[in-house]
């Protein structure tokens, strides 16, 4: 049985691999194979830099099943420097309060504790604040 393109790309997607439209240069994440800007086929893979800033966020206190060990945790819409918004959990926050506009970068982390038993994704991207360089 042929494994679908969707399935083969699944792991890459969770490593922030998207697509770029060969017709209009639009960067797509999540990848969807049809460009939402110009409506044409867009299957060229594109590696996002993983850098961006917090566009909006919330701190979840009432965690769903599989996420209890992280509660309370902060999830955000991150605006990637290439343009698209990504939905992701923030990590390594320390004492610094999150704000809209906080610069963040992608890291790979455990996403949920019950992934194996439920056949769900266990590891994937999260974002952490970009540490201010010390001079």
């Amino acid at each position, binding site marked *: 049985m042929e494994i679908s393109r969707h399935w083969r790309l699944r792991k890459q997607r969770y490593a922030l691999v998207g697509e770029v439209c060969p017709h209009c240069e639009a960067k797509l994440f999540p990848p969807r194979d049809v460009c939402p800007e110009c409506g044409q086929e867009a299957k060229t893979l594109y590696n996002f830099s993983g850098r961006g800033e917090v566009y909006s966020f*919330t701190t979840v206190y009432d965690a769903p099943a599989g996420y209890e060990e992280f509660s309370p945790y902060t999830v955000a819409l991150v605006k990637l420097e290439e343009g698209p918004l990504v*939905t992701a959990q923030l990590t390594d926050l320390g004492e610094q309060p999150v704000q809209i506009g906080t610069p963040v970068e992608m890291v790979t982390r455990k996403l949920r504790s019950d992934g194996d038993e439920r056949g769900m994704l266990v590891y994937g991207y999260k974002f952490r604040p970009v540490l201010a360089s010390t001079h």
Partner: protein
Amino acid sequence: MPATRSLPRPVAIVAAGISKFGAFPGKSSRDLFVEAFLDMESSASKGMDARAIEALYLGNFSSELFEHQGHTAPLIAEAVGLTPIPAVRVEDACASGGVALRQGVMAVASGMYDVVLVGGAEKMTSLPTAEVTDALATAADTQYEIPAGFTFPGFYAAIATAYMHRYGMRPEHLMNVAIKNHENGALNPNAQFGVSISDWMQSRIAAAIKKGKPAPTWQNVWDFLHDDSANPMIAWPLRLFDCSPITDGAAALLLVSAERAADYTDHPIYIIGSGQASDVPLHGRSDLTTLSAARNAAQQAYQMAGVTPADIRFAEVHDCFTIAEIVATEDLGFFPPGDGYKMAEDGVTARNGAKPINVSGGLKSKGHPVGASGIAQAVEVFKQMHGLAGERQLKGDVSLALTHNVGATGSTCVVHIYERKN
């Protein structure tokens, strides 16, 4: 911009009914729909013969997950004695009811049918809360949003965060919506939490005293709503009282062509505007402080109806969370962007205000059986326009109204405009 459409022929609501909303361990969605159907039959002022009904459009989000029952529409039709009419289930998450109404409107307007039953039903409380949360999460993007740990309160909280950042709203402002909708719901005998927050607080104090525990020291509802033990944080800045509940319930409407309306009532409620639009998940949007599908659907409905937001006398909007009502009142053009929270604070959206919003108590207090909510909004419009709303009956002109029903975080929105012409 969508082209202006018109209905090929007029469509009217001539009867409307609703079940009690709440948690009913012994009742299935079928039982609840029968309750709504019987209430609808009794509302037709000249009586009605159910054998005239030619088709059923039923809003239901997820009977598979909630009740382990698929293929729901024929079973519901059978439960109210309508076999063998065509029975169609409509699913667009929490907008399933509003979209079912729109399908019914199109079916009558097209001339295909003269008498159509539209309804909504959802039985949600038989699952543990965590599984209800899981079921509701399937209305979001389960590949890209849910793995991050987002929940529905989380999505709307992110909308609230973006809104606060842009317009200077504070979390306290959201509480005005909850206080108002519970005050309205306290006057609605079908509401799940038909009690004002002030009375809720008093009953908590009384219960503590009765048990011999130290009485809480809340001086007013603001103290109560700021107390983490009484009103826990769910997803900052949203607390428990910012969220609509998990609910069992059903609602039903009878739609007919204009020629047939006089058989049922002397006061048909015409549906003069209908609009619907879709949108990408939150992560594909350029602005989180507005739902573009709501603006799009509203524009279609206003153009079809030939009316403006200022003409609307009252509205039932999709307040699944308090922030959603504030954003809705802006998306519908009632107030400019950034003013919605001030209007809630100033009482403009109160029952005695200039633009009453969610007189029924809204999803917040009346309850949110997701597939039924869009139909229940239209039931409230019918009751208000027929003077059947009891203690919450609006005074003055109620001849033009609007309903706004949202699926998920606005991936679907459907808007209807109603007029009582005589």
